[in-house]
């Protein structure tokens, strides 16, 4: 792509108000990772799956972990219920270090942490009812209580009439609902979602995410989810961390990471959700102005308080000349309006750099994409 990327030297937008969101109260954290590392013995020497992870997940929040495949998400989420044993560092749950738990305490811990999986992992030889009942059965819960609980959960996930079916007779969405019912049967305080919607079609994904959000609000449980899709994060998460090569490269409230991504990986992951220049314009884009008549193409990213629906008239008149809106939109995440505008400015007395500066009064990020004749 022959795009001149005149990234403005980052003048920090005032963030002090949000700093507290980045450093929540550690003493009340539900799940805390301290200097967590995981190293495998690979064929070509040790592989660092996780390195120096320090995170705190608060009670009742929906916490997203995103990254490309192989970034270490899977290992990280599995250290919470110790399906994965970290090589270094500690995991605290309700302030208790779970590192030294024996099998008894581990079993007890896992009953307080539900988990759902990308491929559902239902027992194929058991009916829906038996699948949901299994965690209670192995915990020695009496039959009458089991029946009541299973019925209650099948109602919650809307599968009451499917209780006799085997997993093979269900659709993907229904299977995940069974998985959710099974995960919640011990009334856990934490729900781990391992790419829970990655094997589902978009419509089913929406309904499962809706269900998860409902559960989070109704039961007040903490949800930790991993995904490689930013759309999932946008849909239900409160906060997000971006992992790359086993390290946290970015973290913050979802609206902030979406509105003003700092790291290359975050931008790459966000790219599918962003407004792109129309293909026909993209082709005509030039790195340098052909003549003084050439229009400058700008990308504006508006975030947070500054973007309470952008005042286009003011913006346009500040830029001067003829301003055209090529592509753009505004969406709301966690009450913050996030806008993206692709503009072309022609016949302005200002140069590209000046235009960028001017636009910077309205937008968090301004990028000069190039010129069109």
């Amino acid at each position: 792509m022959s795009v001149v990327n005149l990234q403005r030297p980052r003048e920090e937008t005032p963030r002090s108000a949000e700093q507290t969101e980045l450093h929540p109260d550690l003493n009340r954290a539900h799940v805390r990772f301290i200097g967590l590392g995981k190293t495998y013995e690979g064929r070509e020497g040790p592989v660092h799956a996780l390195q120096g992870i320090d995170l705190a997940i608060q009670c009742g929040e929906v916490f997203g972990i995103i990254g490309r495949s192989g970034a270490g998400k899977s290992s990280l989420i599995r250290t919470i219920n110790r399906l994965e044993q970290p090589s270094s560092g500690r995991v605290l749950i309700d302030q208790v270090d779970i590192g030294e738990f024996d099998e008894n305490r581990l079993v007890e811990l896992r009953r307080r942490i539900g988990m759902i999986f990308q491929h559902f992992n239902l027992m194929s030889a058991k009916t829906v009812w038996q699948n949901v009942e299994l965690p209670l059965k192995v915990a020695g819960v009496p039959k009458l209580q089991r029946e009541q609980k299973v019925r209650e959960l099948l109602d919650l996930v809307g599968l009451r009439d499917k209780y006799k079916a085997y997993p093979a007779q269900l659709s993907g969405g229904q299977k995940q609902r069974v998985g959710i019912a099974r995960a919640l049967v011990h009334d856990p305080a934490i729900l781990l979602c391992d790419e829970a919607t990655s094997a589902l079609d978009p419509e089913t994904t929406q309904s499962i995410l809706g269900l998860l959000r409902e559960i989070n609000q109704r039961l007040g449980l903490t949800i930790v989810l991993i995904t490689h899709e930013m759309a999932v994060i946008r849909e239900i998460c409160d906060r997000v961390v971006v992992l790359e090569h086993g390290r946290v490269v970015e973290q913050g409230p979802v609206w902030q990471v979406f509105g003003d991504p700092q790291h290359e990986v975050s931008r790459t992951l966000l790219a599918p959700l962003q407004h792109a220049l129309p293909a026909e314009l993209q082709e005509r884009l030039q790195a340098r102005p052909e003549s003084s008549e050439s229009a400058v193409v700008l990308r504006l990213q508006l975030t947070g308080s500054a973007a309470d629906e952008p005042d286009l008239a003011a913006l346009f008149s500040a830029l001067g000349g003829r301003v055209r809106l090529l592509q753009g939109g505004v969406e709301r995440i966690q009450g913050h309006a996030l806008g993206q505008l692709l503009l072309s400015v022609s016949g302005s007395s200002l140069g590209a750099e000046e235009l960028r500066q001017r636009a910077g009064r309205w937008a968090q990020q301004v990028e000069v994409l190039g010129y069109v004749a």
Partner: protein
Amino acid sequence: MWLERLWQVVIYTFLMVGVSSLIALLLGIPLAVILVTSDKGGIYEAPVVNRVLGAFVNLFRSIPFLILMVALIPFTRLIVGTTYGVWAAVVPLTIAATPFFARIAEVSLREVDHGLIEAAQAMGCRRWHIVWHVLLPESLPGIVGGFTITLVTMINSSAMAGAIGAGGLGDIAYRYGYQRFDSQVMLTVIVLLVILVAVIQLGGDRLARVLNKR
């Protein structure tokens, strides 16, 4: 006169195959479970146990039944007090069938998706819960199929045992068919065996299909 004996001989075959297969079933499944769970990455990881057991199974699996039977004669005498008749045949048959069936059951157990074991751990299953509620039920169709194969193989082996004095269909075929060239007896034995194997195979297949919910 041989027709009267035929009925008795069929019962002998049933006895030999039935008893030895039943013991093989009862010993083979635990053996297979230990082989799978003690392996690297298994829920009861124990490399030494795994290697020793594996070597034992391979040892018996590599000896042809006829040789195994002869080699075991002193052992058989020790156990049942005789080296002649149905009960003497049960000993080598069982010792041959158990590792055979254990290996087949092991394959089915290994095919259980690791994700299911992970899910079971995540829901708070102890390790024996995983064996009882996950590994065994999930691999049951495969185990039933494997047991069917074991039964058919045992019929095969029992005929060999019959030839050296165990009684059963092998015995009658050997005496009348081989030593007297009585083709009528031979034919009857063959028809009986074909029916027997077909019934076992059909029954086993049907049961495995009913149990398979995948």
